[in-house]
């Protein structure tokens, strides 16, 4: 359904073009869930924005983003507006500021219906009420305003808005990061349930490995604008190949207590990326050749890794 091919994005910054995404490729089908994992600066949010066509003006984009065969990047803006909200829904990170403070939640959920299906106000409101109930806000009146809701509730509204037109793909960019821990699980469950139920594809973007392991079947790890490892979640988690993935795991507070191990060094500034493998300066296993060229994604089968010296090999 969705095929991203060699997506490369550069943004104008201070007179130059800074690469933020390089050669990102993956595919996602209906009923499939894929996770994009990385720290801030890895380019994961940029990938979502590029798919949605919401990059800042002046961005240079190459590659293709095929939605059921048609390249979204080649679409004129007017046609892209017809895709956003209708074929692809998006949930953003900050629920506290994602909603228009002046409109009722019912009106905001109804808005995509009025845009794409030209529904009358009454019809749209009725559908919106059903959607709000479906995301667990049945007890909250549709005439409420965002400032009267909690963060978790607002995020549910955002999810309802994203799903209103029954999209084929739902992109969720850090949907739970800004929420309390207790609420995070609820929202994640909601997302997977909804995805299952409607048969849509789910692209989940996060920096939290725990979220990934619970929710998605396939995972892509991103570092400095490139995909460094990808494969089925079970496979990747049990047999981590890329040193970055391994380091990321060790950096999590372990469930069994004990201390996380921080990854030495910092994520490189996009305008000053080192030649060759971007992770090499921080990698325990790096050799001289790692700084010479960017390792391609390689590996047999579905689990692939962009490293010349992957873990589990000598």
């Amino acid at each position, binding site marked *: 359904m969705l095929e991203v091919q060699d997506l490369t994005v550069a943004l104008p910054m201070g007179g130059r073009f800074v690469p933020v995404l390089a050669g990102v490729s993956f595919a996602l089908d209906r009923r499939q869930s894929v996770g994009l994992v990385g720290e801030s600066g890895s380019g994961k949010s940029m990938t979502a924005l590029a798919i*949605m066509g*919401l990059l800042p003006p002046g961005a240079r984009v190459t590659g293709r983003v095929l939605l059921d065969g048609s390249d979204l990047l080649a679409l004129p*803006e*007017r046609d892209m*507006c*017809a*895709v*956003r*909200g*209708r074929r692809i*829904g*998006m949930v*953003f990170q*900050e629920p506290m*500021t*994602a*909603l*228009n*403070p*002046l409109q009722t939640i019912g009106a905001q959920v109804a*808005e*995509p219906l009025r*845009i*794409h299906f030209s529904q009358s106000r009454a019809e749209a409101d009725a559908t919106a009420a059903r959607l709000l109930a479906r995301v667990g806000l049945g007890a909250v009146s549709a005439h409420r*305003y965002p*400032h009267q809701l909690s963060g978790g509730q607002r995020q549910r509204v*955002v999810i309802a*808005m*994203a799903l209103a037109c029954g999209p084929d793909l739902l992109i969720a960019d850090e949907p739970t990061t800004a929420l309390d821990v207790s609420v995070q699980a609820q929202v994640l469950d909601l997302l997977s349930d909804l995805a299952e139920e409607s048969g849509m594809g789910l692209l989940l973007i996060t920096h939290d490995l725990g979220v990934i392991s619970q929710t998605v079947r396939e995972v892509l790890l991103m570092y400095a604008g490139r995909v460094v490892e990808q494969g089925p979640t079970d496979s990747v988690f049990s047999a981590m190949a890329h040193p970055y993935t391994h380091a990321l795991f060790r950096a999590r507070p372990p469930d069994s207590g004990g201390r996380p191990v921080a990854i030495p060094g910092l994520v490189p500034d996009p305008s000053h990326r080192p030649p060759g493998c971007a992770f090499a300066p921080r990698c325990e296993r790096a050799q001289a050749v790692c700084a010479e060229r960017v390792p391609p994604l390689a590996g047999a089968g579905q689990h692939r890794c962009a490293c010349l010296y992957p873990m589990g090999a000598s």
Partner: protein
Amino acid sequence: MLAFLLRRLAILLATLLAASLVVFVVLQVLPGDPAALILGTGAREDTLAAVRHQLGLDAPAWLRYLRWLGGLLSGNFGTSYTYHVPVADLVRQRVLVSLPLALFAIVLSTALAIPVGVAAAARRGGAVDAGLMGVAQVGVALPNFWLGLLLILAFAVHLAWLPASGFPGWDAGVWAGCRALILPAVALALPQAAILARVTRAAVIDTLGEDFVRTARAKGRSRRAALWRHAVPNALVPVVTLIGLQFSFLLAGTVIIENVFTLPGLGRLVFQAIAQRDLIVVQDLVVLLAGSVILVNFLVDLVAASIDPRLRRAGG
């Protein structure tokens, strides 16, 4: 919502009362002897006493205040010392000039400023933005009475399209009256429009950067729809507040412009009354004008709360 309204109303009334007290104290109590103020120094004692008695100025201050207040509330504004006609009549005549002028100017100003401000914000950083804001920067610096003179120079002296001064009265016809108000309205409106455009631009730029605008785009709204349906309404509260302030200014602050165009408005009435030491007119008018400022502020608060539900909390 009701609690909010009641609280606002209470503040309104309290402020009005305080304003009336301040005016009374400043004009009648502080100068010591209002009669001396009216008649000027050098008046003879028996004349002063006669005037005091005639105008009820020999009563104690608090009593005079209450009488005055009572009069105001019942529509009896007293009688002008100079013209010996009810102040209410004078006010009514002048309001018929000042109010249309103010409305004319505020409509012009808003109709010009908001599209300009939104356009500049939407094309921020570009040539259109720089050009519009450059013009606005100069517009803000123009004194409105000088602009009035320039307009007279251009349209009355050179082109002779419009009258250079005076007001023929509405009896001479609606169009004749309006003609006399065009130049003063434009002189008042342009500098205000410049300020309003800058504020609108800043407010819209702020809201364009907000997350919910991105959400609107993600729902399928075009850039233009996201701008007008989501960003602009959120930018309106500071804009509406400013429009309210400008309107108050237009009602009460036009004394100079009225002098430029020789318009028989409220500003000139106060001005002449001050010169003629017609205290009762000055008192009444200042309270009326202060009252209208307070009232407009109240209305602006209501409008703001109707736009932005977050402002409806009782504490606000």
